[in-house]
């Protein structure tokens, strides 16, 4: 299921966005990422909403008016694939918004979405465990599933969008991520350390993760190494200091 072309999907998605940015002479951004998604994934539009912590998602970028409208609509009626994706922490892939099962699941959202011209909607939550940074939504005017290779690419682009948002949260300039460190999200100790810092500082998981990253940048240390120190209790975050 993984794999076409053999390359690491995340790296390939990264090079697409970087190429797109280079061609336009612009820095890598959420907007460019959405435009790249439309170019590469055979979808009508891409929309990225972020959760600023208030529980009310904000639309950061939409490649077309329909995408912006779908985000607005889900906010208004309080239901929809993006709402479920954000809540559940997994993608919600709706191949036919007009199907009876879909209408049953979101009775308020689906008729209005179809009226607006959307027939398929694929919502990818941008999350690290309990951290919910936002949702990348791809829509199509025609019903139908994302073919497996496109789905893999969509997941990779969502992974990239997540990294851009996390970089912002860690007060870093997008696109300047040091590839050597990357974000070792496969490392359980990074998440364990985030949980411990959350407890030590009495802050939410987003804030704890941003603090961990900031400390790693400041000390020029790999994130995984710092996380291991936290888990082994060689390093403790104190509420009074560390406002980086």
């Amino acid at each position, binding site marked *: 299921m993984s794999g076409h072309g053999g390359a690491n999907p995340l790296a390939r998605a990264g090079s697409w966005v970087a190429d797109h940015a280079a061609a336009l002479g612009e820095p890598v951004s959420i907007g460019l990422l959405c435009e790249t998604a439309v170019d590469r994934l055979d979808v009508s539009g891409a929309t990225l909403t972020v959760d600023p912590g208030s529980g009310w998602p904000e639309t950061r970028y939409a490649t077309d008016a329909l995408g912006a409208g779908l985000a607005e609509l889900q906010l208004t009626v309080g239901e929809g694939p993006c709402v479920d994706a954000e809540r*559940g922490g997994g993608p919600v892939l709706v191949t036919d918004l007009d199907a009876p099962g879909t209408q049953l699941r979101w009775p308020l959202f689906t008729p209005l979405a179809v009226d607006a011209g959307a027939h398929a909607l694929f919502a990818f939550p941008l999350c690290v465990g309990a951290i919910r940074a936002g949702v990348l939504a791809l829509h199509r005017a025609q019903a139908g599933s994302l073919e497996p290779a496109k*789905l893999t690419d969509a997941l*990779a682009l969502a992974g990239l969008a997540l990294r851009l948002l996390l970089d912002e949260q860690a007060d870093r300039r997008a696109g300047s991520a040091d590839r050597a460190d990357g974000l070792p999200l*496969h490392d*359980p100790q990074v998440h*364990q350390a985030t949980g411990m810092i959350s407890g*030590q500082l009495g802050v939410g998981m987003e804030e704890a993760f941003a603090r961990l990253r900031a400390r790693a940048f400041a000390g020029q240390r790999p994130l995984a190494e710092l996380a291991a120190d936290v888990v082994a209790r060689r390093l403790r975050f104190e509420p009074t200091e560390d406002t980086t």
Partner: protein
Amino acid sequence: MNDHHEQRLARVFVELADTLVDDFDMLEFLSMLVERCVELLDVAAAGVVLSDHRGALRMAAASSEQARLVELFAVQTDDGPCLDCVRTGLPVYSANLAADEARWPRFAPAAVAAGFVATHAVPMRLRRNVIGALNLFKAEPNGVDPASVQLGQALADVATIGMLQQRAIDDNTVLVEQLQTALNSRVVIEQAKGVLSAHAGVDMDHAFTALRGYARSHNLRLSALAFTVANGTADLTAIMAGGERPARRAQR
């Protein structure tokens, strides 16, 4: 194989096939798979890794959460039997991990340090797709015995089929939704372990045991409970008090 064992085995196969429920939770399901492996097979530990669709393998469940075992799945992002197994779609094994350091420079020493002598990884395959691997570990020499390997593969097959039939689908949409959800829930559990560990001053294994014990005794889903711990809405003291003498601890 005695009658009791056969009956137990039959029950487990039924349990693994019984996925046609509305509130199917892949993480709970895979946790059950690895626990049953350790009960039924002659192995010391078991775990499941899943492909995350982004070019990496992630641990979804392990028979224990001891740091050394969890670490064994984490290093398999770089090398190890699971990685080879998922790449080739074939079983991969080592009967003597100490002699396999050249083959798996990160995994083999970590496995030996964790006290394991032999390992066997079997693919979790859905038609042409390999979605992950079941990894068995043995602490005594001579490798994982053929009967355990066969049974392990059968359990992995039934589990994988169960995961797919769980909704009648002809594409991988639902599977991808569930895989990704399970992998994220796994991260929530790690975060929750950290919160509990900082709160109570215990190690990750103890934190997990308390979390799982509380979920079971209160009939809660592990992933749902972990989420409340991670977002700061759970009663940490009650969770750490656990099933043992909750009354005495509660007075503190």
